[in-house]
């Protein structure tokens, strides 16, 4: 048999296979949303709004916690009240995210080996992932 000289047709990707964890029928698909507008049979409409909000809150919380994990050991810039901007190596947060443990905190008075930053003073933190 001779080798095939024709170019095979290119493909963008392969068809998606089944999700091992679910039976599918994504409730967020456009078709589902259009054809099944009231799919929460037992709870009232306000109940379903709460469920939606709770889900979003949970998602945002998870994202925040993952960001804290990612920040560990990195050099972070903290923007704080009164136009204070400092850099430090982030260590950890306490359980209620009230204080942030940092190392080598660069302050106008010099570098503080170890320090705790009060979360309520922090407006934003940024870092390179």
């Amino acid at each position: 048999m001779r080798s095939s000289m024709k170019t095979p047709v290119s493909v963008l990707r392969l068809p998606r296979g089944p999700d091992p964890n679910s039976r599918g029928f994504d409730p967020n698909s456009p078709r589902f949303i259009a054809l099944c507008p009231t799919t929460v049979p037992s709870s009232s409409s306000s109940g379903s709004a709460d469920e939606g909000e709770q889900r979003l809150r949970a998602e945002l919380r998870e994202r925040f916690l993952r960001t804290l994990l990612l920040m560990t050991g990195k050099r972070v810039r903290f923007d704080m009240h009164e136009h204070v901007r400092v850099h430090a190596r982030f260590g950890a947060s306490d359980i209620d995210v009230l204080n942030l443990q940092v190392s080598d905190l660069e302050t106008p008075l010099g570098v503080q080996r170890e320090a705790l930053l009060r979360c309520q003073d922090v407006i934003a933190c940024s870092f390179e992932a």
Partner: protein
Amino acid sequence: MAMRQTPLTCSGHTRPVVDLAFSGITPYGYFLISACKDGKPMLRQGDTGDWIGTFLGHKGAVWGATLNKEATKAATAAADFTAKVWDAVTGDEVLTLAHKHIVKSVNFTQDSNCLLTGGNDKVLRIYDLSKPEAEPQEIAGHTSAIKKALWCNNDQQILSAAEDKTIRLWDKNTKEAVKTLSFDASVSSMEYIPDGEILVITYGRTIAFYKANSLDLIKTVDAPASIHSASLHPEKDFFVAGGDDFKLYKYDYTTREEMESYKGHFGPIHCVRFSPDGELYASGSEDGTLRLWQTAVGKTYGLWKCVLPEELSSENSEILYCPPAEIKA
């Protein structure tokens, strides 16, 4: 430049795929349902093969599956002696219809109000889906297990194929057989094309085309191997067939000449159907996979992308997957 067909393999089933059906074209595209001996029929997006969901509930091999035109309902026939109706948007089971034996075939009327079932108890049943508790109408006559049952002629007649080597045309109202065709071999598959009233049947190595309302023979074509299923293109210029030798054959309907054959499956092909727009056809095999094949090889459609030769060798080619050229020894 001639291109080589790249079939798209849809995996997920763990046992042979024995039946498949397309929906009509809906505002969300068209859909495909596959029946599998693993008992878990699956719904896929028709033009990409992407899995949408699995209908869970049957306790035995699923022998037949169908979708209504709008792809809002699905029906399945199984070895657990039931036919089930499903909501094809949510995946929920809507109805279980108990039978006295293995159910092999299910088919909706155009308005999705009635479901036709047929199976090993040799009786055709018509269920009114708006009155599911009511007893179905029954049509008896076949002397062996029914393999396939279809509505035809504007849902006024029924076509059924059975192991008794006959195909019978029934009047839905009188429940009488209007015509019977007898064969030397058991009919392996049946497809009804409403536009043009054509019936495509396969038996042995033959693919035969009949007028659906009269059961008059139009033409026959013989293939190199035993054929299990065939499908006629919506524009009736080609048909495809597959069977025991694992290959898919493409024929010119007018001249009856074999145009192409494609290898790809690792087992006998049990079912093949053209999509409602005719741009692709799907095949189901003993190897547990469904494969999608382009009608016009090289055309940009679904997941297939037409790539010009200059693009293939360029640095910033965005094509993610180009199957390696096979060198055959």
